[in-house]
């Protein structure tokens, strides 16, 4: 599937029961849909999970992705979120080499500018927790790359429409 196109956030409410994630990811694989990230978690309703999928795709492919998702029996609702009218966040944990005091204080400065937290300090490493849009996390990552990132974990995007939007 096409690598170019725009970035979309697809939000789906799905049955909270075993096998649902499998059915969805199997659909993506079988139909060749490219997914950047996928997150799942419980919602205000105990029998429903919310799944947030981000994908870079052209409009035609996105249309198919949404329609094929809707076709799945376990998928209750699917929406493409308008990025201007929704809030979306990702969390990243970034561990980097930080031995000498200058490096350590530089990292602490960057982290505070990005409203991140230092959540772990070892003899030779520091771990920063940072939350924001994927762009913001990318920006932070490129700033600290110079110190040597030893491990990195990102959650993928979670999103909700703003205010009264449903």
């Amino acid at each position: 599937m096409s690598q170019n196109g725009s970035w979309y956030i697809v939000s789906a409410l799905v049955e909270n029961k075993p096998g649902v994630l499998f059915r969805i990811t199997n659909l993506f694989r079988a139909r060749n849909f490219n997914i950047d990230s996928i997150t799942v978690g419980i919602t205000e309703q105990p029998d429903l999970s919310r799944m947030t999928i981000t994908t870079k795709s052209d409009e035609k492919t996105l249309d198919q992705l949404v329609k094929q998702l809707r076709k799945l029996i376990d998928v209750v609702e699917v929406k493409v979120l308008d990025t201007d009218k929704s809030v979306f966040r990702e969390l990243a944990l970034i561990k980097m080499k930080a031995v000498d005091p200058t490096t350590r204080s530089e990292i602490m400065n960057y982290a505070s500018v990005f409203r991140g937290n230092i959540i772990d300090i070892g003899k030779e490493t520091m771990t920063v927790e940072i939350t924001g849009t994927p762009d913001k996390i990318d920006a932070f990552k490129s700033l600290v790359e110079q110190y040597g990132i030893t491990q990195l974990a990102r959650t993928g995007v979670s999103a909700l429409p703003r205010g009264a939007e449903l």
Partner: protein
Amino acid sequence: MTGAKALIHALEKEGVDVVFGLPGGANLPIYDALVGANLRHVLVRHEQSAAHMADGYARIKRKAGVCFATSGPGATNIVTGLATAYADSSPVVAVTGQVPLAMIGKDAFQETDIIGISNPCTKYAFQPRTAVEIPETVKKAFYISESGRPGPVLVDIPKDVQQATADMHFPDLIKVRGYNPTTDADMSEIGRAVELLLKAERPIIMAGGGVILSGAFPELQALAELMMIPVVTTFKGKGAFPENHPLAMGPIGMHGHAEANKIILEADCILAVGARFSDRSVGRFDEFGKGMSIIHMDIDPAEIGKNKSVDVAIVGDVKSSLRTLVKWLSKKITKRDAEDPWLRRRKELIQYYQETIKDYPREITAKKSIKKLRELLPANAIATTEVGQCQMWASLHFDVITPGTFFSSTGLGTMGFGFPASIGAKAARPQVPVVDIAGDGSFNMTENSLAVSVLEKLPVIVFLMNNYMLGMVAQWQRTFYNRRYSGVHQHRCPDYVKIAEAYGAQGIRAQSMAELENAIKTALKSDVATVIDIPIDPDEDVYPFVAPGSSLKDMITGA
């Protein structure tokens, strides 16, 4: 009541009168519950055939066919059948046994993850974990399988769940939250379709499998006759419209009728009714329908714009959409008369190709045999096919007169489908003759169903176009690989008359048209299955032919 008993009772409540299957360790409780049940069990010789029989039954009854298999190899054996039904949107409910709950995930004997394996080829799969869930699960399985765009549904029941007892409640109504198929079309879209159709000078109807699935035969015919529009079909839609009708043009596509392929290129407006623009029917997506307006009627929103962008999309059951369309149009239409240039063009094309496409020069050929078969069968006989040249010859030369009496494995093209499916069709409608237009290679794959046909008194006719060759593959090797044959010869093995006789069926070899005529007449009178072995020349090709990846305009007619 045990889970197994609840299953059987739930099936009876769904009106199931026959199940096709084969037992094993993991579905013993189900087979025990079958004893004394109010439904017929047809024991198969291979589970793949059970699924095809259920599928053939479903295509004729237009309600779900049911098959049973045990866990592990029993379950994997039905997968080809499920994939076949899925590709052709056929309602099949398959019930498999599974190892006991506590053994799942332990690589138990005959454990297989059939839910995972069948996922891409089922509409849904259930695994009830308590006996009490079974009645509702069965109800949901039938609802999902038969409604909307139909398809196969699997119910995988662990053995201990079959054995457990519970107070059962059999619901009459169920709801599936995430599943709400559209049935009634959007009126504004129908309005736009009316405008396009009225404006069109050279409209054409392209009827697909959706018309057959919905049984919208009278509605389709009413529309065609109201507007006097020529009707082509997809191969899956073959017989959605009577092929002896003065507006009929037959199937389009890779092996479509030449006149159908030609006329659709000359149209200015295509009304696609329950068709999914498959590569086999339309050739190259980008070239098909260029410069024409396209109206697409389909029950599945995901089909809209999947292969082909269209001007107007009418999502809903074609039976109701067509009815509305006819109602709206009948107020506005002035009928095309027979002198209309578009209808004259239709006649011209048919005549042109009748004169140019030459017959293969032999005493007995596929074309002549199939035409003879049609001539001798009653109009309401059911025909199905195997896969390959035999199938395409059936498409080209077997005119379906009563709508909905022809079907084939079209989407998956499963060799070995036709014979067991014909037995399923016979179970669904025992009073009419059922014929499988077969190839030798395909028949080989499920010929052991002869035992089922004979023992269960479900006599069908196997009309074997015998070239002792995987003929369709051989044709491609002739055409695209400079006649380098590889892996296609069957070396005159086996003797099909003896095969038939070994099972207690009737085998007749027909080597001339006179012998063939007698054989067909004998078969029609017979109360056991008859295999008519018709030796044909292995070099006979199917024409017309549109090479894969080409446009319909690049059709080779062999003339």
